[in-house]
C-alpha cells in the first residue's frame, strides 16, 4: 500500500497543480476572447494613444486612464515604498525583538481592512482635507495615491522584513568586525545584500496598487480627462472597467475587456521583473557560497 500511494500521490498532486494553471488559463482566455477582437478592429494605436473616451459615439481612447493609473501608482509607491522599507529596516535591524512581534501583526491588520473602508475614509476625511489644504476638488490623484500608499504598506513591509531577515548574520558581523557602526553596516552591507528582495516587495506593491479598484473609484474622482496635476481628478484603468462594465454592451464591453488585457499584461511584466529581481538576489547569494 505504501508503494501504491507513493506512486499515486505525485500524479494526484500534478493534477492539482495543473488545475491551478487551468484556472489562470481560463481567466486569461476569457479576457482575451472578449478583448482581442476589439483590439484588432480598432487598432492598438487608437486604443492606447487616443485621449478620447466617449463610448457612446464609438471613441475608445484610454490614454488618460493609462496616464492616471501610472500617476496614481507612482504616487502610491512614493509614499508606500520608502515608509515600508524604513519601517522594515527599523523593525528588523534596530528595534528590540519584542517590538517586531507586536508591530508586525499590527501591520498585517492594515492589510486586512477592506478596500471599501479605506475608500470611505478617504472620501470622508482625506478628500475634504486635501481640498481645504491644497485646493481642487479633493477627489484627486493625490488622494488616491495616499490611500493606495497606505494600502500597499503591509505588502512592501512584509516582504522587506523577510528580505532583511534572510541576509546572513555573518554579513553583519563581518561589517561590525571591520569597525562599522550598526547603521553603517545596515546601510552599506545589509541593505545592499537584501536589495533584490526589497525591490521585489516594491514591485509586488506596485502590482497591488495598479490592480486596486474599489478604493480608487471612491477617492480619485473618475474624470475622463488627462490629468495635469496631482490635484486633478482622474480615472484609472481599473476604475474605468468597474464603472462601466455593469451595463456596457457590444464594442463598449469589448473595449473594457481590452483594458483588462492591458492591465493583465502590465501585471505579468511586473511580476516577471519581481521574479527576476528575486532570482538575481538568490543567485548572488548562492555564488557567495551561503
Amino acid at each position, binding site marked *: 500500500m505504501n508503494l501504491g500511494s507513493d506512486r499515486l500521490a505525485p500524479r494526484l498532486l500534478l493534477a492539482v497543480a495543473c488545475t491551478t494553471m487551468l484556472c489562470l488559463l481560463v481567466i486569461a482566455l476569457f479576457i482575451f476572447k472578449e478583448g482581442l477582437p476589439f483590439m484588432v478592429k480598432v487598432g492598438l494605436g487608437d486604443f492606447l494613444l487616443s485621449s478620447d*473616451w*466617449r*463610448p*457612446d*459615439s464609438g471613441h475608445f481612447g484610454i490614454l*488618460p486612464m493609462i496616464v492616471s493609473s501610472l500617476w496614481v501608482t507612482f504616487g502610491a509607491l512614493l509614499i508606500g515604498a520608502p515608509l515600508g522599507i524604513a519601517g522594515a529596516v527599523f523593525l528588523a535591524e534596530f528595534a528590540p525583538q519584542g517590538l517586531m512581534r507586536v508591530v508586525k501583526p499590527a501591520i498585517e491588520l492594515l492589510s486586512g481592512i477592506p478596500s471599501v473602508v479605506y475608500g470611505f475614509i478617504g*472620501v*470622508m476625511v482625506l*478628500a*475634504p482635507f486635501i*481640498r481645504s489644504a491644497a485646493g481642487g*476638488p*479633493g*477627489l484627486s490623484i493625490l488622494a488616491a495615491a495616499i490611500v493606495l500608499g497606505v494600502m500597499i504598506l503591509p505588502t512592501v513591509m512584509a516582504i522587506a522584513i523577510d528580505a532583511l531577515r534572510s541576509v546572513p548574520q555573518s554579513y553583519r558581523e563581518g561589517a561590525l568586525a571591520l569597525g562599522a557602526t550598526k547603521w553603517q553596516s545596515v546601510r552599506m552591507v545589509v541593505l545592499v545584500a537584501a536589495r533584490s528582495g526589497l525591490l521585489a516587495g516594491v514591485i509586488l506593491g506596485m502590482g497591488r496598487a495598479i490592480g486596486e479598484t474599489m478604493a480608487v*473609484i*471612491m477617492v480619485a*474622482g*473618475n*474624470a*475622463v*480627462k488627462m490629468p495635469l496635476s496631482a490635484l486633478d*481628478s482622474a*480615472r484609472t484603468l481599473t476604475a474605468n472597467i*468597474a*464603472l*462601466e462594465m*455593469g*451595463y*456596457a*454592451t457590444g464594442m463598449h464591453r469589448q473595449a473594457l475587456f481590452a483594458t483588462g488585457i492591458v492591465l493583465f499584461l502590465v501585471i505579468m511584466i511586473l511580476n516577471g521583473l519581481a521574479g527576476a529581481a528575486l532570482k538575481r538576489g538568490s543567485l548572488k547569494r548562492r555564488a557567495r557560497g551561503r
Partner: protein
Amino acid sequence: MTFPSLRPSLETRRVPAFAVSLLCCLLALGCRGREGSVTLAGSTAFQPFAEKLAEEYDDAHPEVNVTVQGGGSALGISAALNGAAQIGMADLVELPPDASALVATVVARDGIAVVVNPKNRIAEISMPKLRAVYMGKIRNWKELGGGDAPITVVSRESGSGTRSSFESILGRFDLTSDAIIQDSNGTIRETVANDGNAIGYLSYGLVNEKIRSVEVDGVPCSSENILAGSYRLVRPIYLLTLGAPRGTPKGFIDYVLGPAGQASIVADGLLPAPRGAASPAGGVSDAPAPGPEGGAR
C-alpha cells in the same frame, strides 16, 4: 532541537474531515427545488426599496422567497433577458433597444433633484444653462450669478439610470471630460456636501440637510410639482419581465402596484406610479396622457 513525532497529530486529521462535511451539508441543503422564488436585479437606486418591499411581501407570503440584487439598470435588463433574474429593475427614462423583448411595468417615479452645497448662493437654474454647465460651456459660478469660483461638475457613471434620464431630459449632450464621476447617489451627496463649488444631481428622496436642491426653470423640486408634471426631471422605475408578468413574479409586481406597496414606496421618498399607467406609453405625470406624443419625456 528534538525530532518531530511521526504520528499525525489530531489537528491535521480533523481539518479535512470538517471541511468535507461542511461542503456536503451545504450542497445537500442547496439541492432543493427553487420554485416559489423570485429574483430581482438591476437599478441600485431602487434596490433598497425593492428589498423593503420584498421583506413585506415575504411576511405576507412566507412560501415565496424574493431575492434582490443590484448591479445597475443595464445589468437588470441583461439579467431579465438571460434569465438570471425573473424581474429586472431599471430606472431609465428611455429603455435601450435590446429591452424591447421585455415588458416594462412602471411601479414608481423618482424625481431627480439638482443639488449644490448649502453655502452656494445660487437658488435656481434654467434647463439650457444646466445643460451648458454639464457640457463644460459654463465653467464659473459667476456666469450664473454666484461668486467667482470654478464649477465642479459631478455626475454619475455612464450606465446609471439616473444619469441617462438626466441627460435624456436635458437633451442629449456630451458630458464635459472635467466632470467628477461617482458611482452612487450617496457618494454624489457626499461630494457636493464637501465641495462648496460642486453641482450634482441625485434621487429626490435622498436630499438632506447637507446639500440644497435648486429650482429648475423656476420650479422647486417637490413631490407636488413632480406629480403635477411641472418639475420635469423625473424618471419612471420599471420592473421588466420577459413576456407579460405571470405566476409568482406577477404576484410580487401586483403587490408593488397595490396600495400597501405604493404606500411603502412613498414613505421612503419615491413617488407612486402614475394612476392607471402600467406601461411606458402612459408617460410619467399624473396628467391624463393625451396619446403617443404625451407624457413628460
